[in-house]
């Protein structure tokens, strides 16, 4: 399985801009498939962004965040080469994690 998160971290002004795309269906539990069966809810409930192991963002999501979710955030400081990590947890207990270096 290829990486389930795409992250870019770039210095911008006096901080760092992080953009992450996550591979996830974000099913609301309200939709039906083509046979009319309800597709079970499956969505990311929590996302965490860390910079060199320090938490810089905690997000909590509902099923209303779009499929293959996008997250953009900015933190102060950061230098080229620092590690930025993004991880998620969904309502079924599945997790995803990815990291990149600031450039």
């Amino acid at each position, binding site marked *: *399985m*290829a990486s389930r998160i*795409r992250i870019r971290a770039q210095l911008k002004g006096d901080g760092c801009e992080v953009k992450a795309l996550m591979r996830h*269906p974000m*099913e609301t539990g309200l939709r039906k*498939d083509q046979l009319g069966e309800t597709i079970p809810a499956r969505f990311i409930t929590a996302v965490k962004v860390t910079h060199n192991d320090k938490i810089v963002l905690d997000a909590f999501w509902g099923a209303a965040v779009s499929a293959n979710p996008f997250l953009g955030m900015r933190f102060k400081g950061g230098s080229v080469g620092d590690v930025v990590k993004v991880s998620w947890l969904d309502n079924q207990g599945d997790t995803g994690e990815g990291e990149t270096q600031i450039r």
Partner: protein
Amino acid sequence: MISWCAGILSSLLLLLAPLWAWAQQDGIFDEYRAMFGDDNPAVFVIDEGEELWFSKAGPNSTSLEGCDLGLGAGVVEGAYAQLPRYFADTDRVQDVESRLEHCMIELQGKTREEIHAKPYSLRGDLGTEMEALVAWLAEQSRGLAIAPGQAHPSERSSYELGEQLFYFRAGPHDFSCATCHGQSGKRIRLQSLPDLTAHEGAAEAYSSWPAYRISQGIVRTMGWRMRDCFRQQRMPELIMGSEAAVALQTYLAVNAAGATMAAPGLKR
């Protein structure tokens, strides 16, 4: 080793890639589209396609590296932009999907039935192998000119049949492809409709498929687009890689010839 090199190459291409092209620029949704920036979730599917190409699969436990897409076995760069084309080994004009099917059967030992069981994603899916492979192969033609074969008589007759099919009115609504895509400057609800009978419209459309459909969260292929247009025309289900599917894509590709591939695109 080859896999590793290709990985580096595709990562480089991704870094260097220009902004993901939207198929249409028509004013009313400019603000909406601008907010997407250059983040296209198709990147996941492209990666998956690359992995699949180099993975051993099927009863023969073989990768697709020996697959000839028209430029020689294993040559993927630029191959997509020259499809559909005539292949002597099958004596058929083939699009990327029917050619991949051929390779999956011949090289990997898969059956036609399993390949056709679910070539395109249904609601709630994240993608199929076919979609991933096509997305990656299209990515390998990014920036190259659309140049489908038209030298072989079969390629020319595929074009002519494609044109006939484009204007083929049938079903309870009397629709054909041309009903919506035969004039320029029109729209359905708010969606602009490219005129696929003219170079400009065909180029805009053909160069941006496969595309990540934000409404569906799935990368869709040109083959799927053909199938779905027939669904909307109230017609039966178009078979992936069938002669009609190939002929229509030949018609579009030839009308678009010379334009630059910019797929996978990002679409409504």
